[in-house]
């Protein structure tokens, strides 16, 4: 019982971070929030799965290190090297995207309540939190124009999928979990290299300049 309320409390924290990320205008704060979200997520396998199992412990440590420290550091470095303005620059304003995010959360709750869950998962907020975080990632990806904020959007999208994965801590093999984390790491690594090149070539990270290829 206590565990369920702890997990739900953390998930509410994740949802609040989603809204904060949609509303913030500073890239640094955005990276910080994504990192904090990663740390909160990293702790959760311990609460949902068997806390004494080695696998859950290892996944938790790897996730916290990767999402809470390594990736934010790579992103901050890309930000520093690019020496861009530290504002987020949205295509759609902050308040409208926050409203979109909030209504997306409500829709996720409604949609998730229609899906049949296993008895042990019924009281958890995992499914709505997962869908809502995926949606937040999408919003960041599509409504922010800087390459680096789009990368953060992808990170948040991945966080949403990680939340869904909590339903499967027992079913998903260890190797696959590690593979997913490794792919995320390499992905962000490649992205930060490309960001470096975009900045060198265009003297900006504004993805609206990436518009010479079209019909």
């Amino acid at each position, binding site marked *: 019982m206590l565990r369920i309320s702890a997990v739900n409390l953390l998930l509410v924290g994740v949802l609040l971070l989603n809204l904060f990320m949609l509303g913030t205008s500073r890239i640094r704060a955005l990276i910080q929030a994504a990192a904090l979200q990663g740390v909160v997520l990293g702790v959760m396998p311990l609460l949902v799965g068997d806390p004494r199992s080695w696998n859950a412990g290892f996944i938790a440590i790897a996730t916290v290190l990767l999402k809470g420290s390594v990736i934010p550091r790579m992103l901050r470095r890309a930000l520093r090297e690019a020496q861009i303005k530290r504002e987020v620059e949205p295509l759609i304003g902050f308040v409208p995207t926050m409203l979109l995010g909030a209504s997306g959360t409500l829709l996720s709750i409604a949609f998730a309540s229609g*899906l*049949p869950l296993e008895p042990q998962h019924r009281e958890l907020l995992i499914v709505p939190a997962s869908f809502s975080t995926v949606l937040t990632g*999408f919003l960041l990806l599509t409504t922010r124009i800087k390459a680096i904020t789009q990368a953060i959007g992808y990170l948040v999208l991945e966080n949403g999928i990680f939340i869904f994965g909590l339903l*499967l801590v027992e*079913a*998903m093999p260890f190797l*696959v979990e590690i593979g997913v984390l490794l792919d995320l790491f390499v992905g962000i690594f490649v992205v930060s290299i490309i960001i470096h090149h975009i900045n060198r*070539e265009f003297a900006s990270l504004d993805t609206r300049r*990436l*518009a010479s290829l079209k019909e």
Partner: protein
Amino acid sequence: MLLLALIALPVLAAGVAAAIASDRWRPHVLPAAAAGHLALSLMAISAPRPSSLGGWLALDPPGRLVLLLLSVLFAICAVYAVGYLRYRRELSNRVFVPCLLIFLGMTTLVVCSQHLGLMWVAVEASTLATAPLIYFNRTPRSIEATWKYLLVGSVGIALALLGSFVLAYASLGEDSSLLFGDLLRRADHMNRSWLRVAFVLLLVGYGTKMGLAPMHTWKPDAYGEAPGVVGALLAGGLTNCAFLALVRVSHICQAAGEGVYTGRLLVFLGGLSIAVAAVFMVGQRDFKRMLAYSSIEHMGILVLGVGLGGSGIFASLLHMLNNGLTKGVLFLSAANIHRAFDSKSVQDVRGAMRRVPLSGTLFLFGFFAITGSPPFGPFVSEFLIVSRAFAADRFLVGGGVLLLLLVVFIGMGRTVLLMVQGLPSPEARRTSYHDGLLTGLPVAFSIALVLLLGLHIPVPLEALLRDAAAYLEMIP
């Protein structure tokens, strides 16, 4: 063990290539690794049922076909790449060659993995390995293409991961193994609502990787800016791996009794892709982008065939081989023409048959093959798919596909004929490129295979095709 070696060989070769300091000698690792891979692949395909790592790696019948195609196509591209990189001495291939080899290793892993999660990891890894390949030319346009490829591809692949998780949840029970064989066996106990959600997510995810409309937007940019040899490997290799992933997943849904639902979605997305490709192919000014739209069209034909079911599955698998090899011909010969004229705009390229007779002729043959003209292979497989549509009383689908194929033939034909016929205009730039053995012979070999598939399918290959089609129709 065999399968592990098959995956480890290219990855080790990538390490060797990265250790070689000379840009001149590094590309020679490619044909050596390709030859080894081809030999091991043939051994694995003829072995009864190779499996490693407790069933995580195994070759199912459709996997054998994709492995054969991948290995042959990579061998063709590897020989070509040696010739191509000689013309690109100004650029370092320090990243390019190892990434090509890692790409081969990871796509092989996709083909061999029998685990839902492992397959996803491999698809994502092969996506990441191709990003530096697209960026080979180091121009602003190629950065743009790489960024779009990474962003659209990663989001698509992320949705496929969510879909894999949902599918795993749908199958949750006492035995929760995620091996395809076990999933198929447990399929009728799966939760139908979750399964439908899973299929939509996986279709969108792996469909993005295949380049099905409307998730195709990365494709023209990536194929347009990447070197031709990368285009050939993406259009004939990576997209077919994503197709294999989609086929495996829809097989599970079919076994769960959702065949009608998945069939409808596949036919819809397939038809939409063919239509979108046809619209954008008419009057296309950039011939590499035209080939990208052709790839979208043929991916549409593949999923349409699977969606129609029955003999459509056999036809689709045959078309996968035909399309993969023909795309090799088209992308590689187009790359030669691009080199010879230093332009990929249709306006600058005239008289390709005069300036580069071999590549011009091969490009023309490739065009006839891909648009389904006899006696080339795609004619047979496209004919089988359309006749399956009529046999299943789907007259609207069959008629629509025929009409769109005609539009594609006319649209593409106009562009291709303008390019190969006539005389090069006097102001067209001259380059040092001439048709050579290394950049000509592999392409000629590839079109010979396409022709062979059109005239007579070798008996062992036909057995493989029948096996794969029977496997995909089987409901345990």
